[in-house]
């Protein structure tokens, strides 16, 4: 009998909270089945054993925010045939990219008594700023079932079935009354990628965009509605600049909104 080759998977961590890696470990019903299908060759949060690369699939959590991480992501790229950016830190820079809108020196002094000990880049960047990324999976954290779908699709050499609609579609499917229309709540649902299951509007609150911008969203048309629903100054800009603020479309939206507020 010929031995079956199990594709090797490496899971890496850059600047992040561990939440996307944890989402993999939270696959309580699927985890052991998954480890039958793939060889988890490198996953430090889960196992001490490390198999040497190269690997078939690399899942990368986190953003690039230090010099060392720039070198490291290039090595990871060389080691992995298929590179998957896992979560909004990896696809857009994450919450720590809020520093991109401020002056890093003043930031370091606020948190650390000895800023000279700290070596951080002035910006937190998505992986794609430094290497070629093959697949992006958004979310803060990623939806664990999307991770399974993605890995299954890769194993079967088919296109992954990931939603291409906005959060609004998921919200409608849940039978929610639109919180933006009915309650005037500021909500990024119309310009945010689906995947979370519209959990925030289901809690009677606005979406804060943790699955990142919907591709080809009608940003310009949306801005006046967002501005009109602000309950305190800067709410719309802050919503855009929460988790996915560094994603180009949200960055542009925040700038448009600030210009609208100035005028």
């Amino acid at each position, binding site marked *: 009998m010929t031995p079956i080759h199990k594709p090797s998977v490496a899971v890496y961590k850059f600047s992040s909270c*561990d939440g996307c890696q944890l989402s993999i470990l939270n696959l309580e019903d699927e*985890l052991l089945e998954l480890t039958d299908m793939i060889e988890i060759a490198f996953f430090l949060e889960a196992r001490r054993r490390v198999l040497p690369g190269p690997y078939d699939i690399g899942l990368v959590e986190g953003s690039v925010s230090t010099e060392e991480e720039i070198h490291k992501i290039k090595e990871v790229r060389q080691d992995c045939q298929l590179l998957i950016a896992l979560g909004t830190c990896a696809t857009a820079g994450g919450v720590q990219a809020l520093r991109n809108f401020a002056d890093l020196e003043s930031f370091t002094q606020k948190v650390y008594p000895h800023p000279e000990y700290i070596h951080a880049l002035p910006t937190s960047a998505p992986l794609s700023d430094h290497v070629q990324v093959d697949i992006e999976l958004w979310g803060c954290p990623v939806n664990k079932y999307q991770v399974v779908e993605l890995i299954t699709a890769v194993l079967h050499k088919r296109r992954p079935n990931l939603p291409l609609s906005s959060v609004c579609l998921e919200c409608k499917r849940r039978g929610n009354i639109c919180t933006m229309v009915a309650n005037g709540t500021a909500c990024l649902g119309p310009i945010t990628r689906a995947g979370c299951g519209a959990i925030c509007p289901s809690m009677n609150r606005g979406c804060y965009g943790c699955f990142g911008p919907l591709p080809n969203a009608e940003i310009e048309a949306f801005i006046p509605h967002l501005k009109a629903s602000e309950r305190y100054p800067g709410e719309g800009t802050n919503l855009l600049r929460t988790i996915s603020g560094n994603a180009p479309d949200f960055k542009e939206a925040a700038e448009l909104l600030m210009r609208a507020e100035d005028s």
Partner: protein
Amino acid sequence: MVKTIEVPALARVEGEGGLYISYEDGKPNEIKVNIYEPPRFFEAFLEGRYLQEVPDITARICGICPVAYQMSAVRAFEKALDIEMTAQTRLLRNLLYCGEWIESHVLHIYMLQAPDLTGHESAISLAEVAPERVTTALRMKKIGNQILKAIGGRSVHPVNACVGGWYRWPEVKELHALVPEIEWGLEQAIETVHWAVTLPYPELEVDYEYVALHHPAEYAVLEGDILSSHTGMITEEDFETHYLEKHMEHSNALHSYTNENQPYFVGPLARYNLNFEQLGALAKRIAAEVGVEPPLHNPYKGLIARAIETIESFDRAIRLIEDYNPAEPNTQPIKMRAGEGAAATEAPRGLLYHRYRINESGFVENARIVPPTAQNLARMEADLWQLAPIVYELPHEEATLTCEHLLRAYDPCISCATHFLTLTIEDK
């Protein structure tokens, strides 16, 4: 003679750290726990944010304990604004916290620390020889996540908690539906304690100063005063004058000491030793049955304290769900004003302190966060000084494992990149 031991990684922790031990004439002369985890500057970018945005942002400090970061934040703001938690909000916050403790504790017991005690490199390899134990653990962990999801919409970075209460009350029937599974989890948690006491823990007794939240009427998680085994009780407001942070060159995390310059210990072992009396009757009874009542001063046996706390969390979750009956409004009106508030809650891995100052419109002017693992770092280094002479005598692989295991036993949440632990032992 220079002896160097290098291992590729400190695995099975949440975070990126290193460890350095050097010896002169066979005696340790330098020990460092290095934290390479890139700084993420949370306190800085919280400035200027509206208070209701803060729990969503602080959650992202840690994917394993986001609830802790939300609960310390909302409580600190509520203290700044003189908002008293309603009875049902207190209940539901405690229940949310039970979910996080279950999820985090079961993960740590079975997937992070137990492999060290059973001779495995991971729960994945443990599953090859003891599949039932691992599938049971996964199902227990899942219950914690189901509680989080039922209340918060999802288990990692839940979205329901806000200053003043909740965005929406979860359905009573949705929580009741979880009870049979929680009851099953409770039985398994009891079994876990019986199993945990049979494991071969390394010998190490340390005279710790324990620090934990303390509440006279319950095993403190959400609120209380701060109790030290050595210096007694203080209020949350006095935390920063009693516990100080130092910035070391080898670490991107600050190291904490008491105002008497002593390292101290936070986490399950501290809570267990300080608050055993406040545990529920069931947890206390099981502890007595297996003979692990306090004092317990072996850091490796934090696993046992964690297992007893897992019983307490399942047991408490059932009682809280029985009493859940939200008739009051889900959120209290906020009368905005300038002010400052400090609050500590018990994250699964120890005391988590937040303080915020806000202006009259509710925007943050200043933020301070002291996470549990930063408080334990100095303590970990002190433990390694005690362990280092023993490590020197051991074969390379065993030396490395014993050091790694010690750090893992703390359940460190370095909350970023687990890269490479390099244990270098130099003998000059």
